[in-house]
């Protein structure tokens, strides 16, 4: 039957016209070559998971009048197995880009290819997991019902759904609340369910819209660890965020958007490297030794900007306090701040 439909369709003169619109043109390499991308040129083309070509989006009002150009000629590529970050202030076009990739919006011009398919193709969703900006879930369902529902949408069998649900509930740590309706959940818990539903189909590509909003520092850390472990499983992740530290911690490559335009694109490690500053970490130096080192630097024509003790991050401090408290419940640590900071600093030297 479908072969017949296919034949009728192909013999139709309209087909050739439609072809341009609906079928990805795999041989069109010019756009790829032109893409201003800092990624290694050796990467094979089949590795490209998401590709946007000259992607623009203009929002219009009901009467078709131009309201705002949310995205202007965006060209990016996301490759298999990387964590790609979209960065930018509010209204910079991050969410618009994600929605275009998901087919929730249609481009005004240009196109988006996901797994070499047009973004509006439904079948591409088989391999995609999406965590929306806020967890837009049905509040009247319980966790189990929610995950079961989304599992059914992937046409998973009953046994498969049960296995995945058990797995995911453990992964996001909601074992105790499986049978409660989502309306009773805190924001963080809802977020975890949202993440679980995004992973129900074991997707190859995961799109995370502001993955850490609403999460406490522990949740944030867990989320970041999870993102990294998903990457290690060979999955591709695209996330957008304005939590710069999150992006810095997990992303391999980032694109920075502002007012709908791509401002910067490249590897995080390269983008953040300050080329003319050298950093040396050492332990157990006396003040005399520090003075001597400063002297050596001066002798070689360099400028000493600071020789100081490093500080840890607030995140590490918080996590250590919580972990300590879990280890020794009820213990008071009111006056121990100094000591703790010392301890933390010495315990996490690699971090700073």
């Amino acid at each position: 039957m479908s072969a017949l439909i296919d034949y009728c369709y192909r013999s139709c003169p309209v087909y050739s016209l439609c072809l341009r619109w609906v079928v990805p043109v795999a041989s069109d390499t010019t756009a790829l070559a032109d893409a201003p991308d800092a990624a290694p040129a050796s990467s094979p083309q089949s590795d490209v998971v998401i590709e946007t070509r000259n992607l623009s989006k203009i929002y219009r009002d009901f009467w078709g009048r131009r309201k705002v150009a949310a995205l202007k000629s965006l060209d990016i590529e996301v490759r298999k197995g990387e964590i790609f970050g979209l960065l930018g202030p509010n209204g910079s076009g991050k969410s618009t880009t994600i929605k275009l990739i998901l087919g929730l919006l249609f481009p005004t011009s240009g196109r988006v290819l996901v797994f070499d398919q047009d973004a509006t193709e439904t079948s591409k969703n088989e391999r995609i997991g999406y965590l929306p900006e806020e967890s837009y879930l049905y509040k009247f369902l319980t966790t189990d019902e929610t995950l079961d529902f989304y599992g059914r949408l992937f046409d998973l069998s009953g046994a498969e759904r049960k296995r995945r649900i058990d797995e995911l509930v453990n992964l996001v740590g909601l074992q105790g609340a499986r049978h409660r309706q989502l309306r009773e959940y805190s924001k963080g818990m809802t977020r975890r369910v949202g993440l679980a539903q995004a992973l129900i189909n074991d997707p190859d590509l995961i799109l995370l819209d502001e993955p850490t909003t609403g999460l406490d520092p522990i949740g944030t850390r867990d989320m970041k660890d999870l993102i990294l472990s998903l990457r290690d499983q060979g999955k591709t992740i695209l996330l957008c965020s304005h939590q710069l530290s999150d992006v810095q911690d997990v992303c391999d490559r980032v694109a920075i958007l502002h007012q709908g335009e791509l401002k910067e694109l490249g590897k995080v490690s390269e983008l953040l490297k300050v080329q003319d500053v050298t950093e040396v970490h050492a332990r157990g130096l006396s003040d005399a030794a520090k003075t001597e080192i400063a002297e050596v630097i001066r002798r070689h024509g360099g400028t000493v900007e600071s020789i100081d003790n490093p500080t840890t991050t607030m995140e590490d401090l918080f996590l250590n306090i919580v972990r300590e408290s879990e280890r020794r419940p009820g213990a008071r640590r009111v006056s121990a701040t100094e000591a703790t900071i010392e301890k933390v600093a010495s315990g996490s030297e690699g971090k700073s």
Partner: protein
Amino acid sequence: MTLQPEDFWSFSEWLMRPQSFLESALLQGIVLVVLAILLGLLLGYLVSAVRYGPSEGFYAVARAVRDLVRSDLPGTSARRIFALARLAYKEAIRRRVLVVVGLFVVGLLFAGWYLDPRSSNPAELYISFVLTATNFLILFLALFISTFSLPADIKSRTIYTIVTKPVRATEIVLGRMIGFVAVGTVMLVPMAIASYFFVTRGLRHDHEVVDIKDLGDGRFTGKLSYDQFHEHTFTMDAPAAPGEPALGTTDSVRGHRHVVRKMNDQFVVGEPVGALRARIPSYGTLAFTDRSGNIDTKGIDVGNEKERGGYGNAGVSRLVGVTGESNRLDYGYMEGGTLGSAIYTFYNVTPSRFPQEDGIPMEMALRAFRTIKGDIVSGLNGSITMRNPDDPKIESNPIPFVVQEYDVAEETLPRTIEGNDGNAVRVLDLFEDLVSDDGRLEVVIRCVDRQQYLGTTVSSVYLRPAESSFAWNLAKSYISIWLQMVMVIAFGVMFSTFLSGPVALVATFACVLLGFMAEQVYDMRYHLDRGEDMGGGPIESMVRMVRQDAMTTELDVDAVAGKIIKTIDAAIVYSLDAIATSLPNLPKMVGTAEYAASGYDIFNSLLARHAVATFGYVIIAFLIGYFFLKTREIAA
């Protein structure tokens, strides 16, 4: 209950209309589908062209069509539809829509206070009350649950998590429809059961035997007590065999009788019987003769009978102007004491269909029209004559009857009756002599009283070969309500794919309302076509109301203004006419309740017609809903 011509159509007659295909439901359906598709494509293209430019707009529409045929329909998965349906169901249930069932039951508890127990036919009152109440409650509920859900999901963006899964627009639309139909069904079933008990219990009552007269030979006559605002008299024959209880029946009051038993010198009155019926009528064809005995199709119009309406069954033929006249069946009258008569020809009258020993049951609901006061106490007199249609000389002697107005009179056409076989007067056998070889029988009804008139329609006189159970008939009424609910849900979901909740609600409601007002719209067009001043269209009516002008005078404004008003009105009326013709005939479906209330079995063909029409509209609504959802930017 006066049946209209289209009520007699069988399913295939309705679908094909062999004599006039322009009136057929099939053609109407095809035209509707084709128009819906063409309009949908055109509208979709225009919207897309404005958004994305002429060529890109074309691609967008072409893609939607291509996807439907190539991937979305073949790729539609039952599991996903079921999941979405279950979600819609759970959503409605957890929003406590079942409270409405509770309200309905509470309403029933108090309804008894307000239903007049003095009514001449309490069964009709009770049944039409429960059916009307359920019907409108369910339709309103269907309206609300179907129109708000999808827009709410889009507004709260929950839909993002659905459409980013491999879910097709077909599945979203179908899932919603099925889910809400399930909700409606879950509510309708308890309402139906509650209604059944309300009607059967509500009509149940007892009498005591208060006055007994011994007629000797074991026969009795007596009176029952005055309860529930009525009383009965009864007669009782001697028991058929010694040792068996003696049985008697009361007279029929308010549509029911009681059986009275005599056991051990005790008289026991049974429950009311005959109030809840589902007669299966066998209708014939009707011709009249005028006062000189000439054949006439219509009978005499005694005035005030020609009501407007009955345009709807003309289908497309009326829309394109081939037919325009009202096609309503009205009562035709025969003049008393003349050769005027009503001749019914019944078909398929065979002993196997009518095995009753004493004769064929026939029922009559005649109207009387008096031109002189006459004997006002007793009813008009009429007569029934049976005749062989092949040889009209073979004819029975007239059976006299007294007309019972506003009631269904039960007569029996006896198996043997004295009559004339064309040569001599002898005892004629009903099946041997009076029924023709192919099973036809003519029944001639005359009015005996001079200067008085008897009125009848095709459906007023019928043979009753069988009786169906009341419970099943009530169930059929509820199936009809269920079909209406499905129709409203389909429209509601369709509108909710591209309108916001309240707007979708209003749009669906407007469709329902226009469906109910269709006959009035057709009537307006009828007058417009004929150039008759009957108040004109909406704007002209407004002008007339403000100026306090009569309806049938010429519009008293200057020529140019009059022309403009009439042109705009014509445009409105013709568009409304087209829309109303394309909408489902809801009043017809609501009207099936009248069958059950009047105690007639709902024709299976009628139910089948409604079912097929509903299915057709669901498909159209589904396609339109799919198209809008597919071409919609969900996140816009």
